[in-house]
């Protein structure tokens, strides 16, 4: 069934990803012996799963109407707004926490307004706050993933719907819901998995030890108890949770069969655009305030420090940008090949394989770093490997996102043109270059931009491989914060957001330009 080198390469790539992911806790477990799961471990797993599930559901409950509103509306600056709304996804956890507190915190504008209105202060600490923070961080991703789904509906479908006199209910039933059934599970899953490994956000805003996540328990095992076996067990529990959630959620989805269009940008016929005329702008304004407020606070705090940043910060920025560009090339390529392989599998197998490919999201940096350290340390010093390991880890961790974005596009391309390509007898390479690549150029650009941005903002300091003299930007930022240098840290955070957004914009535009040619 698996013919052609792209699919074979994809199968090998997937095998490599799964092996590395599972090898990390296994290496650790065999080096020191696994521990049996106990009550504190299970209670950490419970809290982690509950906060992640709540965060994912709330995020997507907002992402569905928001993405639809953004898809339907046309206004000046729409593209720029969509781009800037992506900023929260770039933020390292602690910067995000400070940005949210700048708005919702004790001395933020929300509480100032509440006090002026004579109302009680809003307390952000606790599970509600954790969910709020996770919605802030992940709404951009979920919205973008769904927006991608709306944009992938061939415009011919909407025109047919208008010609047949469909009302909003018919459009929802025959066009929108099938699209959501295809895309929503992936978006829910992506957010769920990101929140599963949230550590600093969950603990800091969670308000204390009630908010003990699996990642914190891993820290405790390493640092407090010096028990790597316990860390390995916790890491395996987290992976199992990821697999179970992956298979459950993915099997809810159903690939959509819209058929192929001419690939023109969807433009809604006038008759359908009147729907949501009132609610769409309100929704967009509300979401903009929610997402942009903390980012503006970041901007205000960062600008004064930006001019006087130490040279080390600029060097770190250059290093991070280089890594991000490399990740943006390697990761989507690998994801595309894996997607080409996955669409050739029967559905049940594809779900399992895809769930396996999601596992890297939930690797603990501590466990991955320690395992890599045990394997690599006989070959070289960890400091010499700091940047290659960061590159590898960022590629691995962003692969699931790239795959989630590319898979539906590859599937649609195969469904629409696969039989034609078969009947023309295209060889595998030509098929990839002449059919799959042009058909997926837009999502490829999105995936490249997203993985670059993700790589830019990820802490990038894999445990035991961090080198302060060759620090990445997020790591440099944490060093600044750890040395009282808050003004410099604010400046560095702003630099990080600007660079990440710029990379994202350039790569995504590149994909769009390619799609138009």
């Amino acid at each position: 069934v698996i013919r052609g080198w792209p699919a074979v390469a994809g199968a090998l790539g997937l095998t490599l990803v799964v092996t590395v992911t599972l090898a990390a806790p296994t290496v650790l477990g065999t080096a020191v012996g696994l521990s049996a799961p106990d009550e504190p471990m299970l209670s950490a797993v419970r809290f982690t799963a509950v906060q992640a599930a709540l965060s994912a559901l709330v995020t997507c409950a907002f992402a569905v109407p928001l993405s639809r509103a953004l898809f339907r509306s046309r206004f000046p600056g729409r593209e720029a707004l969509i781009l800037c709304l992506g900023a929260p996804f770039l933020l390292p956890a602690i910067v995000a926490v400070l940005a949210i507190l700048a708005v919702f915190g004790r001395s933020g504008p929300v509480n100032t307004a509440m006090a002026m209105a004579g109302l009680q202060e809003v307390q952000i600490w606790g599970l509600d706050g954790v969910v709020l923070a996770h919605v802030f961080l992940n709404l951009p991703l979920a919205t973008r993933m769904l927006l991608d789904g709306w944009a992938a509906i061939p415009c011919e479908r909407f025109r047919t719907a208008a010609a047949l006199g469909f009302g909003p209910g018919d459009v929802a039933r025959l066009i929108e819901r099938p699209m959501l059934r295809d895309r929503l599970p992936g978006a829910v899953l992506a957010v769920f998995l990101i929140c599963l490994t949230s550590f600093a956000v969950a603990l800091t805003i969670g308000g204390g030890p009630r908010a003990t996540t699996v990642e914190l328990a891993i820290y405790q095992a390493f640092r407090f108890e010096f028990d790597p076996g316990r860390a390995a067990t916790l890491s395996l529990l987290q992976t199992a949770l990821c697999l179970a959630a992956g298979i459950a959620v993915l099997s809810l989805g159903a690939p959509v069969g819209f058929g192929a269009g001419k690939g023109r940008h969807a433009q809604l016929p006038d008759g359908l655009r009147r729907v949501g005329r009132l609610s769409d702008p309100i929704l967009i304004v509300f979401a903009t305030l929610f997402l942009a407020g903390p980012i503006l606070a970041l901007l205000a705090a960062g600008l004064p420090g930006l001019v006087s940043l130490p040279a080390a910060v600029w060097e770190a920025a250059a290093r991070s940008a280089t890594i991000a560009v490399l990740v943006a090339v390697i990761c989507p390529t690998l994801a595309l090949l894996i997607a080409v392989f996955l669409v050739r599998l029967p559905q049940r197998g594809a779900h399992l394989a895809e769930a396996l490919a999601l596992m890297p999201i939930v690797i603990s940096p501590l466990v991955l770093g320690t395992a890599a350290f045990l394997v690599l340390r006989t070959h070289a010093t960890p400091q010499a490997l700091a940047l290659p390991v960061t590159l590898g880890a960022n590629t691995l961790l962003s692969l699931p996102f790239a795959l989630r974005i590319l898979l539906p596009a590859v599937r649609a391309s195969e469904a629409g043109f696969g039989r034609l390509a078969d009947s023309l007898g295209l060889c595998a390479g030509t098929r990839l270059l002449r059919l799959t690549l042009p058909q997926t150029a837009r999502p490829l650009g999105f995936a490249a931009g997203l993985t670059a941005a993700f790589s830019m903002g990820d802490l990038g300091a894999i445990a035991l491989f961090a080198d302060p003299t060759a620090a990445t930007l997020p790591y440099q930022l944490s060093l600044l914060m750890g040395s009282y240098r808050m003004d410099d840290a604010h400046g560095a955070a702003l630099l990080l957001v600007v660079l990440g957004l710029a990379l994202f914009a350039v790569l995504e535009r590149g994909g769009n330009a390619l799609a138009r040619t």
Partner: protein
Amino acid sequence: MKILPMIAGLLAATAAVADDHPVLTVYTYDSFVAEWGPGPAIEAGFEAACGCDLAFVTAGDGAALLSRLKLEGTGTGADVVVGLDQNLIAEARDTGLFATLPEGLPSPELPVAWSDPEFVPFDWGWFAFVYDRTKTPDVPGTFEALAASDLRIVIQDPRSSTPGLGLLLWVKAAYGDGAKSIWEGLADNIVTVTPGWSEAYGLFLEGEADMVLSYTTSPAYHLIAEGDDSKAAAPFSEGHLLQVEVAATLAGSDQPELAGAFLRYLISDAAQAGIPETNWMYPARVPAGGLPEGFDTLVRPEKTLVLTPEEARAQRGPALAEWLEALVR
């Protein structure tokens, strides 16, 4: 993945060709070697005299350093370790990886008597709650008064943070069996518990809390580096727990003389004079020039609490259980 060992091999080969000086490898925590930390000056100063190359290798903090040494065991490349603290000493000693200190090191000047066969202090500080004088005019003078107040504090998690563990042991050292009821009293003052020091201190600076667990020396940074005298540490009459940061040489080092010479340099006037304004802690030996201007304004607790390494190890497990019980409710 084959490419990684290849790259690594190339790097190692070039490093070996480039230099035939002996290399002294010093493991330390990451902020020590930052551009603004004590590392760069110490490296330059030591290399000027030793005819060797000093190579810093870093881990996140003291606990991460010890984890790394445990993973490496006797195969470790470290000659010297700088940056464990007294709460980690018992655990570190048990690894059997450390050498007896060289003869004739000058004794440290701490607020308490100190003697250890393997670990030598290079700086120290008192844990303390730091506040803003302009916003919080009345500060409590005891943990009990703090618990009774409606001040909001932010602390670090003892499971992931060194100061967090310090506070846990501070309360234990001050109250013993009464520690749990202190924590129950503090529960409604604690805004949140952060994974590390920087998150907590950041929240405090952003105005989310009235007080933050840090060091009595923290206000010196704001005073000296920023010209801001609004920050102060609150003296507690129960006494303040001491944190002592230590260095040691490895028994398996192939450069024991050089390693010993480095410890001697680390506690010499030249290296110690840089500690206050880079690590923002008290130097283990006050240099001939005295402490920098501004350090005289800091609160000096009347009573110093201290736990021996063995007490610290024995108490941290039960103390953590109490802490969790009091705060999880």
